[in-house]
Structure formats: structure tokens, C-alpha cells
């Protein structure tokens, strides 16, 4: 795919999967009617939507009626967290969340706190991983909900979701898992009660999220009542988007093991090569229990944004958790919680069709780029 040469920011958004494009165009023509109506074209659209739901459910290993399509991954997270809390108001208003959750989880937690709820953040170790025992110790008799991501979006560290889920089950607390960064790339962890995902992260279209509420999990919409998506998500369904999302997820799932092996080898190459060629650099995140496609490192004495700008000029799209721009006053809460250098931070995340030559070219330009920026700041290495 010529358009994605040098694109190393799949964790922000994965380039559209060809299967998604084909499914989207087809559904735009054939499944545009209102799936809530009773005439033929509408029933046809309803069938297409439900088939997409069944395909997503099949990949996730859940029942189709547990799956709802939302208007984004963020909306799926907000509904999962706030709906999970609302359903258990009689139990209490205590929420437990990992300190390195995506901002959509933390913003939902902040809203809960503003509404009088109590929030406990569970810290992480240097690799960005929560300790299951520490997470378990944060659960209380009045805990309404716990949240733990499947994998960290900035450093790729996998979280011990299954272990934490067992502790939550023992404490009778539902666990909400933000799986946005891992769906389509790694196995879905076991034991969660609520799950949120985002289609554009797995090669589906933007503006489509997935909310899964397992049977037996109490959940109540925090939004005004609406008939759509089994009363879980308000608003007219994006049927073509849902169809494309399902097609992409299925296609990714088929190739998942092979993609993971290939991308993981490229990530390993970056993990070993960058510290060898760039002085004063730290590769961060768990080296083993990690996503296959994502690696992050921090270069001492470099502004993250300057590095991104320079790499962009050289034809590379990467991301950073640094904060040297006017619109981000604070550094990434993930890097802060891990206690690692927050400046000079670079996140490289490989799309499924990345070529080894792109990675090699990146590795070849990085040392001189870092050296130049350090020189600009007067650092003599």
C-alpha cells in the first residue's frame, strides 16, 4: 500500500483493511434503510446489521445479543464505565481504575468523581503493568466497578486482565476492559464483564465502536432512553460502518497469529537496535508481555515534538507522549505513572502491511536525527 509508506502510528489508527473497504461500499448501496422499520428494505438492513453483530461476537467469543455498535470507541468506553456504575448504585459508588488507562476511561472516572463518586487509581510498575494483588486490595464492599485495559496504548504492555478478573469475580465486582489497543492483534483476555473496542484501531472505519455487556452483568444506560441497539446506544445505527468493522475484524483475526509473529520480530529489532545506535535512550514497556506491533523509547535531552517533526520531514509518522507543545501542558499520565523520562518520547506502532525496509530506513535515520536535535539544544553527547 503506497499511501502508508513510513506510516508507523498504527496505535493511533490502523490503515483501512481492504476487506473493510469492500464491505463498506457494498453496505452503503444495499443496507442504508432504517433497521428499526418493518418493510422489506428495512428488514434487509436489519439482517445485515445483525449479521455484522454475529461476526464480531464470533471473533470475541461472546453471544451476538451481548454486542452493541457505538458511534466510537470512546463512546463505548463511556457507556461501559458509566452504565456499569449506574447499574450498581445501590452497592456503592466506588470505582477502581488502573493508573495508565486510556484518557476516555479516566475522563469517565473524573465525571463519576464530580458526581460524588469515589475513585481509586491502582499504580503500575516501571514496565507499566498493574500488580493483580494490588488491584485486588483496592476492591471494597462498596466497589461498584473496576476497569483494567487489555494492553497499554502508549507502551504496549499487556495487563493481567484474566488474573484481575478472577479477583473481581471473588469480590463480586464487574470488570470493565478497554480492549481498544489489542482487538484484532492479540487474543481477547478472559473474565471481563464489560468490554469496549474501536474499529479504526483494527482496520475498520472511524466512528464505529463496540460495547459488549456479558449476560448477567448489570448495566443501565447513563443516557436518555432510546430504542436503538437494544436500548444500549442512542442514535441511528451506522450499518455500513458496522459491516465494515466486522469484515475487518474477521480478516484481522484470520491473519492475527502470522501478523503478530512478523510484527513482533520487527519490534524486537527496534527494541535491540535503538539502544545500540542512539546514546542515552531507554526502551520502555514490558519486553515480553507486550503487544506485537508497538514499541516506545525515550531519548534523553530531546524534545519529543521536535523529534516527531523532524521524523515527519523524513517521511515517518510516529507518535509521542511528551508534552513540549502549547496544547499539552502535562506529559503523558502513562509515562508519569511508570516513572520514566517523559521528554524525547517516541511511540512506533506498526500497521499490518508495514515493510521491513521501512523499519530499517527508520532505524538508519534515527541516530543522526537525535544527534542533530541534541546539538540544537547544546548537548554534547
Amino acid at each position, binding site marked *: 500500500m503506497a499511501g502508508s509508506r513510513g506510516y508507523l502510528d498504527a496505535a493511533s489508527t490502523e490503515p483501512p483493511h481492504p476487506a473493510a473497504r469492500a464491505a463498506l461500499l457494498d453496505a452503503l448501496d444495499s443496507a442504508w434503510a432504517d433497521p428499526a422499520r418493518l418493510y422489506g428494505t428495512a428488514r434487509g438492513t436489519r439482517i445485515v446489521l445483525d449479521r455484522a453483530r454475529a461476526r464480531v461476537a464470533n471473533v470475541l467469543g461472546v453471544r451476538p445479543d451481548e454486542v452493541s455498535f457505538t458511534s466510537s470507541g470512546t463512546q463505548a468506553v463511556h457507556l461501559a464505565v458509566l452504565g456499569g456504575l449506574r447499574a450498581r448504585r445501590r452497592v456503592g459508588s466506588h470505582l477502581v481504575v488502573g*493508573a495508565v488507562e486510556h484518557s476516555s476511561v479516566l475522563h469517565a*472516572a*473524573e465525571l463519576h*468523581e464530580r458526581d460524588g463518586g*469515589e*475513585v*481509586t*487509581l*491502582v*499504580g*503500575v*510498575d516501571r514496565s507499566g503493568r*498493574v*500488580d493483580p494483588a*494490588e488491584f485486588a*486490595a*483496592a476492591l471494597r464492599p462498596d466497589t461498584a466497578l473496576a476497569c483494567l485495559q487489555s494492553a497499554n496504548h502508549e507502551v504496549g504492555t499487556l495487563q493481567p486482565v484474566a488474573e484481575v478478573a478472577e479477583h473481581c469475580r471473588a469480590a463480586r465486582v464487574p470488570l470493565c476492559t478497554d480492549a481498544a489497543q489489542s482487538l484484532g492483534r492479540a487474543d481477547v483476555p478472559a473474565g471481563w464483564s464489560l468490554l469496549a473496542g474501536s474499529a479504526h484501531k483494527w482496520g475498520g472505519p472511524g466512528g464505529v465502536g463496540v460495547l459488549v455487556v456479558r449476560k448477567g452483568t448489570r448495566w443501565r444506560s447513563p443516557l436518555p432512553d432510546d430504542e436503538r441497539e437494544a436500548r444500549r446506544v442512542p442514535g441511528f445505527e451506522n450499518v455500513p460502518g458496522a459491516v465494515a468493522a466486522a469484515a475487518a475484524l474477521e480478516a484481522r483475526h484470520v491473519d492475527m497469529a502470522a501478523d503478530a509473529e512478523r510484527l513482533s520480530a520487527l519490534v524486537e529489532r527496534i527494541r535491540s537496535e535503538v539502544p545500540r545506535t542512539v546514546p*542515552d535512550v*531507554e526502551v520502555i514497556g514490558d519486553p515480553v508481555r507486550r503487544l506485537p506491533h508497538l514499541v516506545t523509547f525515550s531519548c*534523553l*535531552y*530531546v*524534545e519529543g515534538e521536535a523529534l516527531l517533526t523532524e521524523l515527519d520531514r523524513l517521511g515517518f509518522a510516529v507518535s509521542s507522549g*511528551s*508534552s*513540549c507543545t502549547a496544547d499539552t*501542558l*502535562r*506529559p503523558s499520565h502513562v*509515562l*508519569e*505513572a*511508570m*516513572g*520514566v*523520562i*517523559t*521528554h*524525547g518520547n517516541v511511540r512506533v506502532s506498526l500497521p499490518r502491511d508495514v515493510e521491513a525496509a521501512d523499519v530499517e530506513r527508520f532505524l538508519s535515520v534515527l541516530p543522526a536525527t537525535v544527534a542533530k536535535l541534541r546539538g540544537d*539544544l*547544546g*548537548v554534547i553527547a
Partner: protein
Amino acid sequence: MRFRGRAKSRQPAAAPVPAAPEPSGPVPVLVIDALGRKCPIPIIMLAERIREVPVGEVVAVLADDPAARTDVPAWCRMKSQDFVREETLEQGGWGFHIRRTY
């Protein structure tokens, strides 16, 4: 939000520093004023000037970029220097005390 776990000592507002009666610990022999400077400048100033103090003595960096609260201890860890403590400054910002180890 309340913090639990290993990261809590690094988090803002977790433990309000009592408005300073004489803080404990050794007096810095060099104070680097990086107030108003964005990271990574405070770290660069620290790296440049730490050799001005004798091994075993303490240098202080004054900074008000919140990133410094993470970056100074992380720099000490990477460079095997000894991060002694963080104090809150009356005029805003923080003083970071570092003992030179080599």
C-alpha cells in the same frame, strides 16, 4: 482521585508537603535555577553542571515544568545518580535534590 500502589509517591497532590519549616537533609552546594524552562532544559542543565559539585555532595535543581517531577528522578535512575528528595517552593515549582555518586 486517590492513589494506591507503587506510583503514589510520584503523584501530584497525593501528599501535601507541609509548608516548610526547615526541610531535612543535606544543604545543596549548588543550586541550578531552571524556573520557567521547559523540559528537557532542566535535565540538560543538571547533566551539564552536576560535575561542578564534589562526589557525595548535593545539587538542587529548581524547576516549574510539571514534567521535571518525573524526569529528574528518572534521569537519576538512568544515570545512577542519587535522587534525594523533592521539595515544594513557596514561589511555585519544585526543588529537586540530587547527590552526585560518581
